[in-house]
């Protein structure tokens, strides 16, 4: 960690949000096709000019961006534009799809950490032994297999051939009145059955990389004096590992888990498409496929905000996990 003052760090993070949204804004104005040719179909020149200025497409790229930015901070996330022009607020799509993806990502993180923490502790404790080699090498191979490969194989072998769980689809965990009326699948049982395959395929590569991070740090911590001290007091190895070693070794692990949230949205994009889960990843793919560039801009802004949020979260919580880190940064 660098020792930048918090304010400076905040400025840099804000620059990231402004920069990435500005980048997308410029990008969509650079289209080989003008946006006005895609969205405006009115043959009447006066009506056409009005529609173009309603969308802000007559402005120069900078003014266009500031119009978008001020709207964004007032809670106007832009709209899906259909010829006509019919506008459909992006915020409706976001409130519908973002929770689904967050849910998926949270499951993935929980599963990944639940496997990675014991595996990392064991392989570090038994460093150099056969157990360590099997865990490390086995996980290395898994970490290299792309998650869409795992997803496709699982969907076919577990979902279709064995038929243990449905190969694709999504069911909300709580049934709304609508769901009951239309008899769509819902409820916890259905929900978890359908989430198993996507969660497994996204978490396998993560388990591998988390285990590796934790293993390296635990090996370093095991050499510390306080561990020798605890051992000489006669504490059991299990107790030492969990209470004395795990906490100071977990900083890199939790930092990278938090910073991974953004990358997981990218992973979720393919996985949601494969399993047809109506999350934000799927929505991004749809928006790009149907040329909804204003919507794309809003989605990227949300991802960039997520990135900043988790960066700040990491900065704030590192000191709580290991007070020494705070000292070092001063």
């Amino acid at each position, binding site marked *: 960690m660098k020792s930048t003052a918090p304010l400076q760090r905040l400025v840099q993070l804000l620059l*990231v949000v402004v920069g990435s949204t500005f980048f*997308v804004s410029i990008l969509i104005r650079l289209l080989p096709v003008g946006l006005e040719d895609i969205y405006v179909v009115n043959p009447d020149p006066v009506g056409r000019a009005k529609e173009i200025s309603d969308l802000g497409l007559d402005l120069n790229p900078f003014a266009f961006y500031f119009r978008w930015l001020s709207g964004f901070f007032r809670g106007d996330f832009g709209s899906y534009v259909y010829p006509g022009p019919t506008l459909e607020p992006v915020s409706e799509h976001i409130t519908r799809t973002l929770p689904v993806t967050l849910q998926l990502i949270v499951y993935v993180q929980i599963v990944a950490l639940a496997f990675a923490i014991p595996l990392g502790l064991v392989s570090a404790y038994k460093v150099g032994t056969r157990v360590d080699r099997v865990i490390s090498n086995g996980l*290395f191979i898994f970490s290299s297999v792309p998650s869409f490969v795992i997803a496709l194989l699982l969907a*076919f072998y577990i979902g279709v051939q064995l038929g243990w769980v449905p190969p694709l689809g999504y069911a909300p965990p709580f049934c709304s009145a609508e769901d009951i009326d239309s008899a769509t699948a819902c409820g916890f049982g259905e929900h978890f059955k359908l989430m198993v395959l996507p969660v497994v395929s996204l978490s396998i590569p993560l388990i591998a990389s988390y285990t590796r991070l934790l293993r390296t740090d635990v090996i370093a911590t095991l050499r510390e004096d306080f561990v020798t001290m605890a051992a000489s007091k006669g504490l059991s190895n299990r107790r030492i590992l969990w209470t004395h070693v795990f906490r100071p070794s977990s900083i890199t692990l939790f930092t990278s888990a938090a910073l991974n949230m*953004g990358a997981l949205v990218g992973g979720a994009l393919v996985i949601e498409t494969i399993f047809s889960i109506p999350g934000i990843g799927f929505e991004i793919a749809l928006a790009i496929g149907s040329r909804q560039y204003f919507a794309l801009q809003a989605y990227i802004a949300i991802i960039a905000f997520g990135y900043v949020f988790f960066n700040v979260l990491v900065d704030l919580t590192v000191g709580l996990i290991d007070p020494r880190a705070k000292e070092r940064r001063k």
Partner: protein
Amino acid sequence: MKFKQMGIFSKACVVWLGLVMFFVVFGQFIPLPKPTDFDIEAMGVGLFDSWKHPLGTDSNGYDLLSNAILGARPSMLISLVSVFIGGIIGSTLGIIAAYKRGKLDYIVNTVFNIVLSIPNLVLGLALVAVLATNPDPNIEVPTSRRVFVIVLSLTIVIVPILGRIARGATLSWSNREFVVAARSMGMKDSKIIIKHIVPNVLPAIYAVGFLAIGVVIVVEGSLSLLGVGIVDGVSWGSMIARVRGDLEFAPHSMLVPVTILALTVIACNQLGDVLRSRLDSREGRL
């Protein structure tokens, strides 16, 4: 590193990548059924079932072996070219920024952070979708333009990944005694960078470059799965996308490209990892 000193797994990885590169260069000259010729008498032939089609055929009768071999070229060339160009741009930026420090460093670092804040795949997808559009949605974008756009987008994805590695390595090397000595003797900055910094930073970039090839192969495959990759080309990714609907009739037709892609990524990651751990132990001795 000498081939003999490697572990058995790394040797296998080198052999596999060598084989893939052989197919990239000579794939066209191997006498095989054409990938676009469908064999009407042999649809959905299983793995190792017939001499004519060693890896079988998909449900359309396309030969899987020849598709996989000829798919090596587009897949590998796209990743190698974009990692190469992205690596050169990224490491140049990273090295100069870290050497000069100050404002330039701040700007470059911020730009890297901006690009890194958007997930690889979302960025690649957005760039390809935006740059490869046609005024008339009914006309397909020509393959050459699509390939160019994909390479360009993946290059943009790679630049900050390798750039940040180069920047970090340069920061730690540029304060070493021999660099300070060279500077105090009045050596020009450009010469210091070329003579003293670059040779020391390069190994780290090679190591991460291998990992980056793996990243790019995966992103390219995902782009094809999402329907914006090379459509009529026969890259591994587009092969996977094409046989996806085939799973029920000829499951092995998915297994072949998926295994080849995964093995290649594993091999790249392993070699990158070996290079990196060798680097760490060299640093450790200092």
